[in-house]
């Protein structure tokens, strides 16, 4: 650290007391990360290869990497379902949030701030309560089922809770603000004169949207989809409250392994696998979206 500081000061020609300040400012953040991210990750990694000890709930290090294979094989279905639900919820959230963010950014006039507050308003209620409320809304006596039954879109015996539909819409609902806010931020940054310029250069409304608005909002689309997909794929509350046993996601499996079966190594191995899979997917996605070009 000291050696690096000396070289960097020399390289950048900075005065010593000035070059010290940025490192000083980093210390609280680094300490926080070390304590609550790096240490837990490390202990989770250690746990993932342990084997059961003499007593229940006691595990000893055995470097058993087949824990990963066993755990994965036992829950492939939930694993794939997590990604499927995550992707579906992200698509639904994007479809709802894009027009919403567009309207707030370009058409809301003096109501802009009120609408933004409304987008964030659900956060004033806890995540758990919101999900329970969603269960009420979709429930037997709830407004959604009544309307659908009145319109004869579903039969009198069909229920929409405890279904994939309920879990996916619950996920989309819960993470909608994470999609809306980055979209709004990137749409709002677009200079309205570039849209006028497109019209001036013979692009009609739809072409202007496709050729100018959408490409310029791509940073928001990428940020919003990531902020929605990552927590949605790892979520277990929606599946636990809104789903049936056949809608379990990987988060539910991990929760059960930790707290019910007390199989810490398998739970740790699954957590790592989920993290790695999300990381790979996200990397591919960012590469494909080519957002670095937009910056």
């Amino acid at each position, binding site marked *: 650290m000291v050696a690096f500081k000396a070289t960097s000061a020399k390289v950048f020609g900075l005065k010593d007391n000035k070059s010290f300040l940025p490192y000083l400012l980093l210390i609280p953040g680094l300490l926080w990360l070390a304590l609550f991210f790096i240490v837990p990750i490390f202990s989770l990694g250690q746990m993932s290869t342990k084997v059961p000890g003499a007593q229940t709930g006691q595990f000893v290090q055995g470097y058993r990497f087949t824990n990963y294979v066993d755990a994965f094989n036992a829950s492939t279905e939930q694993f794939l379902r997590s990604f499927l639900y995550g992707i579906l919820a992200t698509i639904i959230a994007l479809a709802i949030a894009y027009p919403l963010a567009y309207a707030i950014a370009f058409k809301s006039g003096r109501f802009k701030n009120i609408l933004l507050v409304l987008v964030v308003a659900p956060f004033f209620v806890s995540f758990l309560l919101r999900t329970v409320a969603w269960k009420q809304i979709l429930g037997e006596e709830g407004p959604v089922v009544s309307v659908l039954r009145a319109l004869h879109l579903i039969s009198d015996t069909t229920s929409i809770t405890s279904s994939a539909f309920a879990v996916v819409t619950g996920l989309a609902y819960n993470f909608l603000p994470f999609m809306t806010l980055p979209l709004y931020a990137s749409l709002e940054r677009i200079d309205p*004169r*570039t849209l006028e*310029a497109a*019209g*001036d*250069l*013979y692009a*009609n409304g739809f072409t202007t949207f496709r050729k100018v608005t959408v490409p310029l909002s791509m940073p928001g689309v990428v940020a919003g989809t990531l902020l929605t997909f990552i927590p949605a794929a790892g979520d277990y509350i929606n599946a636990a409250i809104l789903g049936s046993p056949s809608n379990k996601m990987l988060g539910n499996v991990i929760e059960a392994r930790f707290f019910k079966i007390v199989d810490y190594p398998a739970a740790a191995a699954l957590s790592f696998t989920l993290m790695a899979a999300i990381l790979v997917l996200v990397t591919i996605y960012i590469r494909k979206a080519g957002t670095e070009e937009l910056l």
Partner: protein
Amino acid sequence: MAVDASTSARGDLILKNLTKSYGDFNAVDDLSLEIPKGSFFALLGPSGCGKTTTLRMVAGLEEPTSGSIFVGETDITDMKPYRRPVNTVFQNYALFPHLTIYENIAFGLRRRGISEAEVKTAVDKVLNLIELPQLATRKPNQLSGGQQQRIAVARAIVNRPALLLLDEPLGALDLKLRRQMQIELKWIQTEIGITFVHVTHDQEEAMTMADTIAVMNKGKIEQMGTPEELYDSPKTSFVANFLGQSNLIPGEVSGNDGDNLIVDLFGTKVAVPKARSSAVGKSVLVGVRPEKFRIAAEGKSTHGNVLTGGVVSDVSYIGVSTQYQVEMPSGKEIMVFEQNDDDEEMLRKGAKVVLSWEPTFTFALDGSENAAAGSH
């Protein structure tokens, strides 16, 4: 089905009784105007005079409250912007940040379904015209302000519109670059022969580039003409003060002398050519541009119109000329620019002076005009 006039309509731009109101306020007030095909036309006025609103109505970005807009025989008043034979160079350029310079320029051509080969020919040609062919693959944010400005012009003229609208196109450039771009834009206009309608608040910019200038004030055209006409024979005090500087001295018409009116200025009689008077009543404002005066120490021989009894109240030496502020016995302050082209000694503050000028350099406005209107 709306007609697509973007390539077919050609001819003069005609505005008929164009009005744009926001509530009680008329941003553009019953404006009628004819701009001949191929001319370089400037709409000049202070901010808020309605010039940009007028331009945006021609571009189709604002809807007129009433009145109509024609290009040649074609009524474009209710046409969508993307169907008009009009392209705009926006203030701050509005280039597409996500597209390369090549794609920015090709944008309009592609929307009209022009073949890839023709697009390439046209874009290369216009990039050569503005002498920036090496920038084709760059993004707008990698360009300097002057380069972005030229790309904005290229992106518009590559479409060969009947009309090119320029909304304060040089406002964001520094003074030196602005001068250079003025000459360049004028050259491009001559080269391609498209009608340019240029909106600006900079009178020097308008005078350098335009064949015809319309001076706008409060949503109306105060006066329209060549730069020389506007400068030499302003019809209103607003034009006299906004376009250059003017000394406007109140007086009474006291007689006639052939082609001249004789006007009494605080007891001194001066001659004003009738042809350059827009006065209706007896009371007039006599106008003389500061550089038309000759200034001399009291007692020196003079000719032409003469005002005596002045006292120099301020002197500023600015190199090519010296600017004098002269206080007349009536209390009226008169601005005089004297070329530093002789070895006559500079007059000091407090010196008693006599001002004289050729009668032909005098204009007269009606006495009901506000002498301070449009001054900087």
